[in-house]
């Protein structure tokens, strides 16, 4: 099936981070020479994010290097980047794509790439409006100083400043990947750390028993006071305007002068209300990342049907933002030729660095999949497990076994058949 070609004179990308800038570079690499605009909410250039909970926080990577790790992708290309341009609303009708800013200014486009990613979650009621917040453009800050999330370079530097000041104790709420990395980085800097996780084991929601036990042991062995099966009750004020303690759902109280909330991220979708697009835990796309006439989505914000797994998914991984940024740009250019493009099928891949452990995960396992040890021994911190569901391999988790992880991933890209991936 093919459709009428879209006349692509101007393409607007929303979000100047990994997916958005990769899409921008792809348009140029494909030889498209129209008017290319990237609008970005942040007033300063975003940075590459993985170092924010690792090297930037540890002080081993300069902030400027974290920014150039991202911006090098569009170095020397003709791209009009407009910072401090948060899109407030959109209207996407066929042949009439509009983006609206908070000052009521509008721009139109022939094609749009949605790459607004995701934002860190805060507990309900913890954010208060700032002094310069207006009805038109609301702005928020945390109610107490010393309480952090990590999503942006500024977030990471603010936490680093608090950790550098020699705190008595850091409490990390949530033992997901980012929380666990912050705990590991803080331990390496000699900070006392308590990590609190509501589930009975870290990562239990996604990865199940053996892996969760491994991660729990890794942190305990490195001196983290790990509290499992309890949640955050309240963040308590100490010195005026500053956190002094947290209370937990089991009634206990932990004195803390720094708190990091690792409660996960939520896709940035508010601005799409009433736009005409379908939004449901992400921008709902077809298997080619097509969201609606002239509109594609990529990265953390995109929900699409991954034909390899036969499943709708949304993936919050670094490499996925690159792969989808490329694929979404090509999909839009295909529409310019009247073609319906090709499905974007992939094996999601993720890494995390904690202490001396390089963790890698490929695929899309579920917590109730069967876990099979395929290499090494968790006690040696060098092992790999595969996840099995019926005749399928749904994923692989490896600690300090990159070769095993990548070979499994290459096989999964060919077929998810268990006997093919784990011969």
């Amino acid at each position, binding site marked *: 099936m093919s459709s009428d070609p879209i006349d692509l004179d101007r393409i607007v990308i929303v979000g100047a981070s990994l997916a958005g800038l990769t899409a921008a570079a792809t348009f140029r690499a494909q030889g498209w020479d129209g008017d290319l605009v990237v609008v970005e909410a942040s007033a300063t250039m975003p940075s590459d994010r993985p170092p924010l909970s690792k090297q930037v926080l540890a002080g081993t990577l300069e902030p400027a290097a974290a920014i150039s790790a991202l911006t*090098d992708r569009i170095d020397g290309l003709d791209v009009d980047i407009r910072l401090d341009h948060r899109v407030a609303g959109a209207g996407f009708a066929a042949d009439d794509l509009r983006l609206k800013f908070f000052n009521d200014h509008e721009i139109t486009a022939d094609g749009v790439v949605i790459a607004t990613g995701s934002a860190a979650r805060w507990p309900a009621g913890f954010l208060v409006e700032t002094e310069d917040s207006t009805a038109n453009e609301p702005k928020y800050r945390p109610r107490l100083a010393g309480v952090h999330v990590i999503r942006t370079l500024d977030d990471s530097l603010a936490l680093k400043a608090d950790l550098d000041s020699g705190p008595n104790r850091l409490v990390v709420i949530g033992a997901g990947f980012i929380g666990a990395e912050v705990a590991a980085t803080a331990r390496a800097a000699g900070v006392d750390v308590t990590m609190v996780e509501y589930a009975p084991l870290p990562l239990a929601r996604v990865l199940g028993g053996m892996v969760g036990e491994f991660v729990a042991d890794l942190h305990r062995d490195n001196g983290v006071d790990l509290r499992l099966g309890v949640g955050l009750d309240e963040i308590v004020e100490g010195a005026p305007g500053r956190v002094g303690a947290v209370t937990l759902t089991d009634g206990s109280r932990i004195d803390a002068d720094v708190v990091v909330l690792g409660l996960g991220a939520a896709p940035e979708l508010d601005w799409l209300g009433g736009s005409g697009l379908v939004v449901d835990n992400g921008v709902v796309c077809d298997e080619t990342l097509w969201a609606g006439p002239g509109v594609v989505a990529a990265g953390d914000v995109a929900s699409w049907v991954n034909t390899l797994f036969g499943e709708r998914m949304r993936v919050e991984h670094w490499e996925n933002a690159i792969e989808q940024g490329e694929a979404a740009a090509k999909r839009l250019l295909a529409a310019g030729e009247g073609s319906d493009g090709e499905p974007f099928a992939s094996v999601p891949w993720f890494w995390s660095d904690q202490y001396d452990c390089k963790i890698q995960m490929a695929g899309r396992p579920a917590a109730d999949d069967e876990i099979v040890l395929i290499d090494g021994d968790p006690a040696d911190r060098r092992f790999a497990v595969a996840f099995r569901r019926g005749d399928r391999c749904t994923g692989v988790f490896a600690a300090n076994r*990159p070769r095993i992880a*990548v070979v499994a991933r290459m096989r999964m890209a060919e077929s998810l058949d268990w006997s093919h991936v784990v011969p």
Partner: protein
Amino acid sequence: MKVVVDYDVCESNAICMGIAPEVFEVRDDDFLYLLDENPGEELRSKVEEAVRRCPKQAISIEED
């Protein structure tokens, strides 16, 4: 085209091997080996893809 890896920043996560196994190999000892330092033009797009997807920006291409 000459492929150069900065081994000081490479962390052997093998992403490049997944893209261009003809050029990059992470072996059982967890080190990255370049199988072909001067790959032919037919591998250019794969090597460029590896440059873009290396999380440490450790790979570069030098033209000869």
